[in-house]
């Protein structure tokens, strides 16, 4: 585990963990979220039941994925849409680029989609001279700053109004303001022009409904609706795990996603797109394309222990509750998907060796598993990933030897007793402090007791 990704992670995480301003910004943001979510959950008669039902819906979809994918495709085609099956990120990018070229596309408006972040779509399109404009307010700010989203739901959680005002001043030449409303209106006006002139709209999808062949898109701002209403071509990039069996499932999944994502009963716009425009529509895309993306998801599907990680509806709840995320923030992970879910799935979706450190960057507190609205066994999967890393020999030789020596000690009570005595002596002599340097850098070690419990009990038993 001495890869560059680990070194960078340690450095970035340490920097952020020591940044008290950062901690305060995140804390304030998440406190507001917590209050809203508590209110949102109160709208359910039984939140725990809602989670179980949602997990059952996703279980059904994921464990019969072949059937639902085929049904979905069949319905999209019947509705007049096109389906592209993309095995890799490159396949998806090539398809979209080809489409853009075929239609002479010069400008693309995009609504928030982590799946397109995952496949680094913007870089490819921009490299071919096509202008790509992120239209979700948070994503727009990220794009202006040249940063990846900080959080899968709240892309600029780490920024204050003042930070954003400075970015706008620098990039757009607008006067500084302390008003979130003014900043939003600046973006609205700018982006309105972009919508009017765009040739292609690219969205993600929160769900893909098999029995109607429609993609479901959840948002608050209206930028996704504009993206699939105005341009000539609409492309929806969809991970294959987004399938759900029936339209009826949304009666639960829409409120569940909003509640866990932002605390709203449902978000402002929950749209279903089933194809290109039909007569008598005069506006709207002439073509509708769904890109079904694998990009490692079938590898996760084949893992019977962690298959349920594909239930994820990307609500961000596990990030918000995670004490590690709260202290190091989203960028330190260096991944598209941050927080506990990111540390579970990234080693499966990308190079396992490069990302095998992420499952270790957790205290295994289990708060993520408790909040997950689709009951993914998140913190246990972090344990599974750690075991996989050791099995695949991604651990250091030193650590491996240490645990072998440790086992040898623990298998024998006399050896254990000697080791314990040595440890207590090392504590008393102040040697342990140096051995446990990272831990003792900001903490005092406990005082060494004179005897172990085992010693005490032996004497106690003899005495009584």
């Amino acid at each position, binding site marked *: 585990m001495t890869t560059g990704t680990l070194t960078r992670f340690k450095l970035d995480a340490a920097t952020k963990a020591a940044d008290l301003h950062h901690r305060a910004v995140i804390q304030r943001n998440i406190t507001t979220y917590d209050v809203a979510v508590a209110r949102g959950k109160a709208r359910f008669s039984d939140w725990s*039941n809602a989670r179980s039902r949602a997990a059952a819906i996703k279980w059904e979809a994921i464990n019969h994925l072949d059937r639902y994918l085929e049904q979905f495709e069949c319905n999209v085609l019947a509705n007049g849409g096109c389906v592209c099956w993309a095995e890799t990120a490159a396949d998806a990018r090539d398809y979209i680029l080809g489409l853009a070229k075929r239609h002479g596309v010069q400008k693309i408006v995009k609504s928030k989609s982590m799946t397109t972040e995952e496949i680094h779509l913007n870089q490819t399109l921009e490299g071919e001279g096509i202008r790509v404009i992120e239209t979700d307010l948070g994503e727009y700010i990220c794009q202006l700053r040249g940063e990846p989203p900080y959080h899968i739901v709240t892309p600029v959680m780490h920024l204050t109004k003042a930070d954003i005002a400075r970015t706008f001043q620098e990039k757009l030449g607008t006067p500084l303001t302390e008003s979130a*409303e003014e900043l939003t209106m600046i973006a609205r006006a700018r*982006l309105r022009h972009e919508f009017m002139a765009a040739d292609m709209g690219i969205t993600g999808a929160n769900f893909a409904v098999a029995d109607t062949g429609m993609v479901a898109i959840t948002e608050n701002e209206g930028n996704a609706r504009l993206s699939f209403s105005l341009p000539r071509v609409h492309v929806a990039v969809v991970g294959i795990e987004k399938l759900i069996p029936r339209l009826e499932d949304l009666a639960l999944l829409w409120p569940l996603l909003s509640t866990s994502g932002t605390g709203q009963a449902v978000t402002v716009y929950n*749209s279903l797109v089933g194809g290109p425009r039909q007569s008598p529509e005069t506006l709207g895309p002439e073509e509708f394309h769904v890109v079904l993306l694998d990009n490692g998801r079938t590898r996760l599907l084949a893992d019977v222990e962690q298959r349920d990680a594909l239930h994820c509806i990307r609500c961000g709840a596990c990030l918000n509750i995670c004490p590690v995320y709260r202290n190091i923030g989203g960028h330190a992970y260096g991944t598209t998907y941050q927080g506990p879910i990111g540390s579970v799935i990234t080693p499966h979706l990308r190079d396992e060796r490069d990302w095998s450190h992420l499952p270790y960057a957790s205290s295994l507190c289990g708060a993520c598993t408790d909040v997950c609205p689709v009951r993914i066994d998140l913190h246990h999967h972090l344990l599974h990933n750690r075991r996989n890393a050791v099995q695949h020999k991604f651990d250091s030789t030193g650590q491996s030897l240490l645990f072998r020596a440790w086992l040898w000690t623990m298998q024998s009570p006399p050896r254990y007793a000697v080791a314990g005595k040595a440890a207590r002596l090392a504590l008393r002599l102040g040697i342990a402090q140096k051995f446990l340097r990272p831990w003792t850098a900001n903490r005092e070690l406990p005082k060494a007791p004179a005897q172990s419990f085992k010693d005490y009990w032996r004497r106690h038993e003899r005495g009584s």
Partner: protein
Amino acid sequence: MNAARENILTRVRTALRSESRHPPPATDASVFPPVLNSEVRFKEEFVALTGEVVQNLGQFLKGFTRIATDGNPLVQELVGAGNAGIRDADLGVTGCDCLVAQTGSVIVSTHSAGDRALSVLPPTHLIIAHRSQIVPDLDAAIMWLRERYRGHWPSALSLITGPSRTADIEKILVMGAHGPKRIAVYFVD
């Protein structure tokens, strides 16, 4: 691309030959408290989202100079054809499929509310509906849609719940991020 399709489906089928270690959770108990009075609940929820329930249509329309409408007969009868295109209207008037009491939402589609952009581009959106279009909850709304369309779906539908908003900046709520800043409903009966 057909090879990709076969490859993905083959990988999926091979993966699914082994059973998941997590059995499906079994539960079918209800998740939401029942909605008792749909009309009252709809209005409560809609108003809480800053939606306006219009009492006097004529008065309300006087506040706008450029009005765009859809082909919905109810809208044509009460508001007429409008005098502006979607792109420069200050008010978009549409019909809707149904209204959802549980969440104070309105469902619009390319069948019930005209072009996709009409209910999202103009800064104010007015929905004209019958009270009988209010359904208790999302379950009922989806059932309503199924019966209405019987497999011949509109190309796009949206469940609209309040005016467009964002809280991307410091979680401060701002209305009218990209879509309408105001949303209103007028019941004809």
